[in-house]
């Protein structure tokens, strides 16, 4: 038998929970279910009706030549962003956690790109990557080294590296803040004691800093991977997924299918694939972090 106080407490909990749960179901889970449902239809995005086509959208997706290019691009972005961003952010945070003169200014400057709008950043880099207006090429030309001018945008897979770099430039500052916070939580006594024992800076990094910040590094790695897989604004605004299909990502492909070809059914199938990949990443993250905690 529940006491009146317990009943009241449960009611309070219920009313507190009902609003966020309803909002979550309405705006997160229901659209997700709709996405899966549409992925089995030929919906064109605006008609009130659509036809069930079974697995056709998924079969088309996996058998089309576009998919291998998109998958290749996803791998390039993941490796570039995951590897370089983490290394750079860790390096910067280690430097800034020391007593470097003027570190606050540098710290702010490195974090600044994160507060810039994606569209503005992409426009700036569109200008930077133009063969004729790129400051790099202008400098090379002025030095008489015009033959070494860089063709940033081309049909080569390397164009994806430059696209990744934009993301890297924007988000390394945020990554650095996370690492910096983790570093600051490491007791200074550990460094002092190790210094007395004759530990070098590299040894301190290897045996104190990295183990102490491991969980933050892992979390950050997964968040970064998440961002790399979902890359959209940079390729969409700088190259529109082109030239040809060179810089197409899963997200830009969804956009193109939906709004260029009116194929919301197939776009939904790609959306489902994206959700599945991100779900796998999330599960992997949970398992790894759980192991770390244990």
């Amino acid at each position, binding site marked *: 038998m529940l006491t009146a106080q317990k009943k009241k407490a449960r009611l309070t909990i219920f009313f507190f929970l009902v609003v966020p749960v309803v909002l979550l179901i309405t705006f997160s889970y229901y659209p997700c279910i709709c996405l899966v449902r549409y992925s089995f239809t030929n919906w064109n995005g605006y008609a009130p009706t659509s036809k069930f086509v079974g697995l056709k959208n998924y079969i088309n997706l996996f058998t089309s030549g576009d998919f291998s290019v998109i998958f290749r691009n996803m791998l390039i972005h993941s490796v570039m962003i995951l590897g370089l961003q983490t290394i750079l952010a860790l390096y910067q945070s280690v430097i800034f956690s020391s007593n470097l003169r003027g570190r606050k200014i540098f710290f702010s400057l490195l974090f600044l790109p994160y507060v810039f709008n994606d569209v503005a950043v992409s426009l700036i880099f569109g200008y930077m990557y133009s063969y004729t207006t790129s400051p790099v090429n202008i400098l090379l030309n002025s030095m008489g080294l015009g033959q070494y001018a860089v063709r940033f945008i081309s049909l080569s897979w390397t164009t994806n590296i430059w696209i990744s770099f934009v993301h890297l430039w924007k988000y390394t500052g945020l990554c650095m803040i996370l690492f910096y916070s983790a570093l600051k939580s490491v007791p200074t006594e550990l460094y002092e004691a190790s210094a007395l024992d004759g530990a070098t800076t590299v040894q301190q990094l290897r045996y104190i800093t990295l183990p102490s910040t491991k969980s933050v590094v892992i979390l950050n790695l997964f968040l970064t991977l998440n961002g790399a897989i979902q890359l959209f604004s940079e390729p969409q605004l700088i190259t529109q997924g082109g030239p040809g299909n060179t810089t197409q990502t899963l997200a830009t492909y969804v956009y193109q299918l*939906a709004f260029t070809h009116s194929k919301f059914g197939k776009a939904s199938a790609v959306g489902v694939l994206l959700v599945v990949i991100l779900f796998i990443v999330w599960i992997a993250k949970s398992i790894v972090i759980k192991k770390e905690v244990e």
Partner: protein
Amino acid sequence: MKKLLSLALVLVMVLSCASFASAEEKLEGTITLMTFKANKDVEINAMVEAYEAAHPGVDIVVEYETDDNVVYTRFAAEDAADITFIPGSLNLTTTTYADYFLPLDDLGFDSATMVGLDGCRGADGKLYMVPGGVIYRGILYNKAVFKKLGLEAPKSLDEFWTVCETLKQNGVVPYCTTFINDGYTMDTQMCEVGDYYMASPNYRNEMVALDAPFSYDTNLQFVKIIRECIDRGYVEADMYSYTGTECTNDFIAGKLAMTSNGDYMVPYYVSSGMAEEDIGMFPYPGTDTLVVNTDICYAIYKGCKNVPLAKDFLKYMFGEGNFPARCGLTPPTVGAPVSAPVAELLALYPADKIITSAANSDDFNAIISEAEMDLHGFVQNLLSAADPQAVVDEYNAKWKQAKDELGL
């Protein structure tokens, strides 16, 4: 008798007042107009203000929307603007026009006085849309540069190559490919310009009967010419990163001499500081027919709550409101004034060689959609591939497969 007459007179007066009042009532209230011409907001707002001043109690809300996806969402939610532009990517079939739009046959638009109206009819023969303007295509060239180098507009392909070589020798980039240009220009080099080379208003629809419709001997002739321009070094230094804005700036500055585009670029160049007399247009090398295209159309959405006002305003837009010209387009009205470069272009064609392009058929649109053909990407691939014939073969195979799947 007098009483009866007075009563009748009063009745007539009351009735006429009532009918007058009801006619006035029809032109009150609010409607929305959705247009993608966000860069022409000042001109469009002036048109709306003039209409509102002439019709007190009327409020026209203009929504400027450059993203097709917003139109999709509004259609899906059955909440489209009362008068809306219809993005080409919507790929509506003529059989579904009646599901989305109101017929406009009572507005007095006539195929004899307005270009391109036949392509705006639904499968039921009713008129559902009005073209936002007409487009004359050709090679736009900087006349001042040509004059300075003693050049004249080429009349044949051989003359075109001679002109290109002279320009190159004098440090001017002869031709801009507009390779990237925000994803809408390259496909026209095959579709609309393809019509010019096929000298047919209906070639794209005739393609439906073919299993391998893409060929360098037919609709890809101009793409072949651009490719040769690239091979001969007649184009911009790096076409993969050269933007439309750079192309425009260099064209105006005289660093670049020619580009393929529509006459809608003329007001754009003029508003950017170029004198209209310095802009010229000449026909695509090797063609003898001018195929006029129509721009994006406007229609009244079926769910419109104020139909009389929407119809009156639409009629005003394409009448005294002069909406197409305000948008920087040549109005679709027959005999409407054209810019100097278009007049120069039209003078080169006999009357029977100026034809109007037919609208894409439902079957053509269905194949393009089924095959997921990104025609802009197709032309990009044709221009950059080591083996362009392999690209042609790939797209022909895609076309055939889509045709088979659709049972056409």
